[in-house]
């Protein structure tokens, strides 16, 4: 008997009597009086920076500044080159400084944002860039993860990710260091 059959057979033999899945009443889960305020607070606590009031102008300034510095940037907000970026390899993207992209949804309870494969065009982009800039429609902020999974289709594409803040580590004496292996900073424009 091969491993697969042995495992499946032993599991079938040893498993306990069938029990039911819980009936999850999602009305029991947390709802926030002010979704945006909650989202911004918790996202910034995780090391991100939010722009809300004057966000359209702030975003334009942000893009202009990075452009002026002459750094390698990829702007998926307006770019029609998404196809071209999709095939770039890690060594071609190594020098990427800033990446701009749109998130599909934000979660108030934890500050996470869902980015589907289509939105990132290349799976490496949100991770390999030094600085990540996300644009999120404030109308797409939901209360909690249960609502999030109802709204997105997490398995519709090949890959998708919830991102909550810049990459970080506390592996040295529990000291928080922002900028582990992924992006070193995260800016979020709510507009």
């Amino acid at each position: 008997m091969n491993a697969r059959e042995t495992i499946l057979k032993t599991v079938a033999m040893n498993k306990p009597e069938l029990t039911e899945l819980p009936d999850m009443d999602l009305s029991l889960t947390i709802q926030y009086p002010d979704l945006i305020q909650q989202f911004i607070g918790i996202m910034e606590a995780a090391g991100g920076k939010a722009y809300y009031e004057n966000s359209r102008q702030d975003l334009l300034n942000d893009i202009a500044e990075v452009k002026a510095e002459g750094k390698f940037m990829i702007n998926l907000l307006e770019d029609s080159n998404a196809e071209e970026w999709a095939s770039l390899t890690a060594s071609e993207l190594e020098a990427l400084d800033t990446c701009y992209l749109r998130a599909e949804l934000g979660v108030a309870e934890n500050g996470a944002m869902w980015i589907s494969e289509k939105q990132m065009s290349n799976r490496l982009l949100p991770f390999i860039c030094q600085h990540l800039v996300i644009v999120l429609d404030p109308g797409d902020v939901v209360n909690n993860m249960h609502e999030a999974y109802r709204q997105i289709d997490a398995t519709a594409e090949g890959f998708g990710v919830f991102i909550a803040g810049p990459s970080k580590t506390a592996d040295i004496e529990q000291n928080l260091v922002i900028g582990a292996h992924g992006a070193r900073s995260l800016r979020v424009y709510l507009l």
Partner: protein
Amino acid sequence: MSVKQHAEAAQEFIRDEARTDWHDETLWFVRHKRDKAVNTLPEWEILRDWASRIKNHTLSNLDYYLRNFEEKAASNGIIVHWASDTEDHNRIIHKIIADNKIDKIVKSKSMLTEECHLNEYLQNKGIQILDTDLGEYIVQLRKESPSHIVLPAIHLKRQDVSETFHEHLNTEKGNYDPQYLAGSARHHLRERFIESDLAITGVNFAIAESGSFVVCTNEGNADMGVHSAGIHIACMGIEKLIPKTEHLGVFLRLLARSATGQPITTYSSHFNKPRPWQQMHVVIVDNGRSRQLGRADFRNSLKCIRCAACFNTCPVYRRSGGHSYHSTVAGPIGSILNPNLDMEANSDLPFASTLCGSCSNVCPVKIDIHEQLWKWRQVIVANGYVDKGKKAGMQGMAWVLSNPQVYRMAGKIGRWIMRTFPFMLNNRLNVWYKQREMPRAPEKSFRDWFKENK
């Protein structure tokens, strides 16, 4: 017994008192952060209940969900492998490496590959794997093993890390700044991600209905490796399954809050299909899990989502360190899982607990950890795997405890000895006196006191 016993190994750890105190306090601080995060959610107990029932249900129909997962994953272009034991697991991975003539391999945190000793196995075949989680990278450079499943280098101080990096990465000697040290590792590892051909990851949750899997990290190392390399191998135990995508809502809310007190990890990556030019493999590993499923008293240890909350809260773990458990998974849950893998070699572990029950209280999937520890003790004694001193003591104790008059008499004698001849206890032959002061014995027993004062 070939392996060092927990008590013996712990004795080495606690020799440095300042360091033991620091270890204890640091983990207590993590436990504290967990409490703060948990208290923000009024529905916490409801979530635990759902999580526990989802896992119970999954285990009660696990063969169906495994088949379901395999079928869906295969239809998404993922290659599924099955491994009965560590040998199978390592052989499968080696074959993928050899068939594709790979030599640049990065790995993100996977306790399963540690359990299988994959690094050593491949090293013996001349293949090097680079661990990329910062904590794991540090312990790998030091040729140690992780001492904690979430915080692999929690037994080390910044001075240790600084010395290790100075030796291997040529960082400044005497620079203890965590920012500087982590930055140097980032710089060094970036190159390795970019040139890697194959990336190995663990799996936090595998979803049966869609054949997809989720990997959670804060550092972004799993994604840097996986999306750079042409081949991704994800290794999972059979117990990682959950039935539906919507169940992720429950588990992702519980995992990071329980582990580090964060509301969610920085990255929760959902893998459904490989990119067109990529290979994606999933290795499903049993290694004793199906046997544990058959042990009615211990099967619900398979609900574990490896958050390590039970480690951080455990007074024994905090003061004895992960290495004293001589196993990949230390702490209270490790003390339940390891005797299943090798009862004799791990017979000491269920005794490394005060049975205070704090672990069961924090466990996000409601595993009755301390009760299982107590049950393992019975099994281990019944199988004769307990050392002679402990056995004689336990049998004597059982006799005393089952005879009320003897118990009262023994108490009287004990108190009298402690007051009159304290050196009889405060000596090196008494293991309870090591690193401890014996308390002053009270004049009378609680029973006598109660009779007089009620």
